[in-house]
C-alpha cells in the first residue's frame, strides 16, 4: 500500500523525524512568523504615517521593543541561514552528500551571530535607550 498522506496534525507531530524535521518545522514557523510580524509592522507604519493612528503606534512600539526584537531576530536569522542551506542544496543537488556538514556550518554561523545579536539587544536595554 502506498503512502497515506491524510494524516492528522497531531499524528503528524508524533513522527520521529529528528533534527531535520525540527529544522523543517522551524523553517515554516519562522517563515509565517516573519510574514505576520513584519507584515503587521509595514501595515502599522503605513497607518502611523498616513493617519497617526494610536493602535498603529502601539503595534510598532511593541515591535520595536528589545524583548520582541529578541524573537524577531531569531526568526529572521534562523530562516535566512536555514533557507540559504536549503536553497544551495536544492540548486546544486550534488552537494546533498554534504548535508550533515551543511547543517553543522549553519549552526556554527547561527550561534555566534544570534548570540551577538541577543547580547547587544540586552546590553543596550540595560544601558537604557
Amino acid at each position, binding site marked *: 500500500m502506498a503512502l497515506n498522506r491524510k494524516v492528522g496534525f497531531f499524528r503528524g507531530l508524533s513522527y520521529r523525524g529528528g533534527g531535520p524535521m525540527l529544522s523543517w518545522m522551524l523553517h515554516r514557523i519562522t517563515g509565517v512568523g516573519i510574514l505576520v510580524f513584519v507584515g503587521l509592522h509595514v501595515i502599522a507604519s503605513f497607518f502611523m504615517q498616513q493617519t497617526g493612528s494610536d493602535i498603529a503606534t502601539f503595534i510598532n512600539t511593541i515591535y520595536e521593543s528589545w524583548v520582541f526584537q529578541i524573537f524577531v531576530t531569531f526568526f529572521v536569522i534562523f530562516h535566512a541561514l536555514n533557507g540559504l542551506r536549503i*536553497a544551495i542544496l536544492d540548486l546544486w543537488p550534488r552537494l546533498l552528500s554534504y548535508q550533515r556538514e551543511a547543517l553543522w556550518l549553519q549552526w556554527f554561523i547561527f550561534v555566534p551571530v544570534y548570540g551577538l545579536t541577543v547580547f547587544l539587544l540586552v546590553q543596550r536595554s540595560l544601558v537604557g535607550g
Partner: protein
Amino acid sequence: MHTRSVQPSTSFEYLMWIFTRISGLAMILLAVIGMSGAFLLGARTQMDLPTLMRWTFFPNPNHVVNSNIPDVALGWATAYWQIMQMVIFFFAATHAFNGLRVILEDFIGESFLRPLLRGLIFLLWLFSLITAVFVILAS
C-alpha cells in the same frame, strides 16, 4: 490514494519553487548591498550596529533617523534606495506569500478551496505590495 502526476513542463508550482530559492538568495545579496552602501555613506561613524542592521534589512530612511547622520536626505533618502526597497519588498512579499500558500495547501489538500485560497493570497500579496510602495514613497 491520490497520486500526483509528474509535471515535466514548466508549471506555476515549478516556477514558484525556483522563484523561492532565487528570491531567498537575492534578498541576502540585496542585504549585503544595503550594508555596503551604508558603510560607503559613512555608517561606521554615524550610527550604531542596531541602526545599521535595521538599514540592512530594509533601507528606509525612517530606520536611520535616530542616528548621527547629519542629513538623511543626502545619500540615504534618494531614489536609488527607494527603488532598492521596492525590489527587496517585491522579492520578500512574493517569497513570503508563496511560502504561506505552500503551507496552507499542505493542510487543505486537493479541494475546491484551493483556488479560493490562491485568490485570497494573491489579493493579500497585491495589497501588501501597494501598501509598501506608499510607505516607501512617503518616507
